[in-house]
C-alpha cells in the first residue's frame, strides 16, 4: 500500500514525549521573549528614578545684582533641560544678600506642597498662596502647614559671579 509511505498527518504520529517537548519548548521561548521585551521596557519606564543628571553648578549672574539686605528673585535655566522644554525649564529662586557677600538662596517651592512662595519685603516674610505657609527672611518656618523651612541652595561667589548648585525639583525627599 502506498498510503503507508505518505507523510503522517500532523500531530497524530508524533510521540507523546515529542509533543510534550514541543509544548514546553514553545512555552520557554515565549517566556524568554517576554522577559527580553519586559526587562528593557520596565527599565526604560523607571529610568528617571535614577535622578537624571543630579546636580550641577549654575551661574545666577553678577553678585552685585543682589544688593545687601535685600531679597530678590533670580531666574536660571535648568542645566538638564531638553530642547522641547520651552519655558518650563526656567527655574526661579529667591536670593537673599544677608551682608558683606554672605548669601542665602532659596527654592521658590513651599516645603508643604511645592507652591511658589512670594517675598513681602515690608513684613520680611515669605507667604505661600496655597495653604498659607509662612517663612521668615532667613527661610526658617514661621507658621502654617510646612513641616520645615524653605529649601536652600548651596552657593559660591567666584570672580564676582553668584553660582548655585541645583538641577532638581526640591521636595521633602530630595533637595534642589
Amino acid at each position, binding site marked *: 500500500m502506498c498510503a503507508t509511505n505518505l507523510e503522517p498527518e500532523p500531530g497524530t504520529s508524533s510521540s507523546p514525549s515529542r509533543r510534550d517537548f514541543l509544548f514546553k519548548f514553545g512555552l520557554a521561548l515565549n517566556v524568554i521573549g517576554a522577559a527580553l521585551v519586559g526587562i528593557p521596557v520596565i527599565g526604560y519606564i523607571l529610568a528617571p528614578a535614577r535622578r537624571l543628571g543630579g546636580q550641577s553648578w549654575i551661574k545666577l549672574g553678577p553678585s552685585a545684582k543682589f544688593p545687601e539686605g535685600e531679597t530678590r528673585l533670580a531666574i536660571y535655566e535648568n542645566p538638564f533641560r531638553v530642547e522641547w522644554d520651552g519655558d518650563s525649564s*526656567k527655574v526661579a529662586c529667591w536670593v537673599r544678600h544677608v551682608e558683606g557677600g554672605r548669601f542665602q538662596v532659596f527654592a521658590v517651592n513651599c516645603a508643604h506642597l511645592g507652591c511658589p512662595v512670594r517675598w513681602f519685603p515690608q513684613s520680611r516674610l515669605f507667604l505661600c498662596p496655597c495653604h498659607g505657609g509662612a517663612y521668615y527672611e532667613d527661610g526658617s518656618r514661621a507658621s502654617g502647614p510646612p513641616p520645615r523651612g524653605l529649601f536652600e541652595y548651596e552657593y559660591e561667589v567666584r570672580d564676582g559671579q553668584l553660582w548655585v548648585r541645583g538641577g532638581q525639583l526640591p521636595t521633602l525627599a530630595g533637595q534642589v
Partner: protein
Amino acid sequence: MALFRRVGRWLEERTGLEAAVAPVLAHRVPRSSASWWYVFGSATLTLFLLQIATGICLALVYVPSADKAYDSLLYLNDVAPLGWFLRALHFWGSNAMVAVMTLHMIQVFLFGAHKYPREMTWIAGVFLFLCTLGMAFTGQVLRWDQDAYWGLGISASIAARSPVIGDSLVHVLLGGPIIAGRTLSRFFTVHVFLVPGLLIGLVGLHIWLVLRLGINEWPMPGRVVDRNTYRQRYEEEVGRDGVPFFPDAARKDMVAAGVVILVVLACAALFGPLGPGGVPDPTIIDTTPKPDFYFLALFALFALLPPWTETTLLLVGPPLAIGLLFLVPFIAGTGEKSWKRRPVAVLGVILIVLTVTTLAWLGVIVPWSPRMQAWSAVPTPVQYIKGRSPLELQGALVLQNKQCRNCHSLAGQGGSRGPALDGVATRLTRDQLARQILQGGGNMPAYGKNLSPAEVNAAVAFMETLKQSGEPPARNTAAPRSPARP
C-alpha cells in the same frame, strides 16, 4: 429593499454577528430593573464614548510638547474651526462622566448590587472609578497652563512623602529632574494610551459580568441574599416575570443617555472650554494654583489636617479608602439589599457625600489661603479711621503695609486665614495684642524682628480702637485690677 435584505443575509452568513448579538440584546432582565434608577451605568458608558470621540479630535491638533502645547490649545480655542467646541465638549463631558459615574456608584451601593454574586462587578467598577479619576487628573495636566504646572508640583510633593522610595517616585512621575517637557510627554501617554486602554478592557469586563450575572433586581425589604438560593431565585423571577433588555429596559437608558449628551452639548455651547489659564512659565510666581473640582476636596484636606498628621494620613488614607471600597462586597456580601433595612450603609453614603461636598466647598472659598493682594488692594474701612489719633492712624498704616490684611479682614474685606480684626479690642488686651504681634502663635508668624517698637506701639494703639462704641475693652482676668494704673 430586497437588495438590502440580500446584502444582510450575505453578511450574516459570513459574520454571524446577528446570531451572536440578538440574544444578548433580548436577554431577559427583571421587570423591576426597567427603572429610571438603573440608567446611570449606561449614561456613564455613553459619556465615555463621547470622551473617546472628542479626545481623538483634540489629539488631531494638540501638540504634546512642553514648548508648543499651550500655543496649540490657544490655536484650538481661537483658530481651528470648532476647536473651542470640541475642547468644551471634552471638558464638560469629563465633568459629567465623573458626576454620573458617582451617581451610578451610589445607586448600586444603596440597591445592594455589590452583594453576592456580583462582587467582581463591583471590583471592576471600583477600578473603572479610579481610572476615570486618573483620566481627570492627567487631562488637567495636558491643559498645560499654570494650574497644570503647579498641580504637578503638588503631586510631586505628595509622592515625595512616601518613605524610602519618595525621591525615585517623584522622578518616575516627572520623567526627569524637574516638571518640564519629559513630564508632559509622560502624562500624554498615560492619558491617551495607557488608561484609555485599561478603561476599554475594564468596561468590557464590567458589561460581561452584568450579562453573565444579570441586572440586579429591585431590592425588596426582607428578601435576604443567601449564597445557596440567590441565583436560583433570580433565574426563577426572570423566567416568570422578566422582560427583554432590548427594548423594554433599554428605552429608559436611551432617553437618559440622550439627555446627558444634550446637557453636555448645552454646557459646552453656553460656557465654552476651560482655559488654558496663565502661561506655564514657572518664573511667574504671582499665581494661586487650584485643582479642577474633582480634587478640590483633597486640596482642602491638605490645609485642614494638623501638619503632624499630614504625611501619615496622606500615605495611609487614600490606600485605606480605596482598599475599603474594594472590600465592600466582602464586608457585606449577603443579607438585606434594601436601603430601608441598611441604616449603616445609608448613613455612610450621607456622611461621605456631606464630607466631600463640604471639603470641596471649602476648596472653592479657600479660607486658609492668604489674599496676596489684600494689603495693597483693600483699603482700611472709613469707619475705622474717622476720629482716630495720629498714632492710631499710623497703626492703621502699619496694618496695611505689613501685609496684616492678607490674613486678617476688616469689615469683611481681606484674608480669612487669621481671625477678623473687627472687635479684636474686646477679645485681647493691650499686652496680649503686643505679645501676639511680637511672638506670633497659632498660625501667625512672629513679627518681633520685622517691626520697630514704634510700629508695634502704633499697631496696638489702632487695634485697641477696633470695637463697637459702648462695648467694654478686653481686660486681663488673671491679674487683679490695679486702681493706681496711670
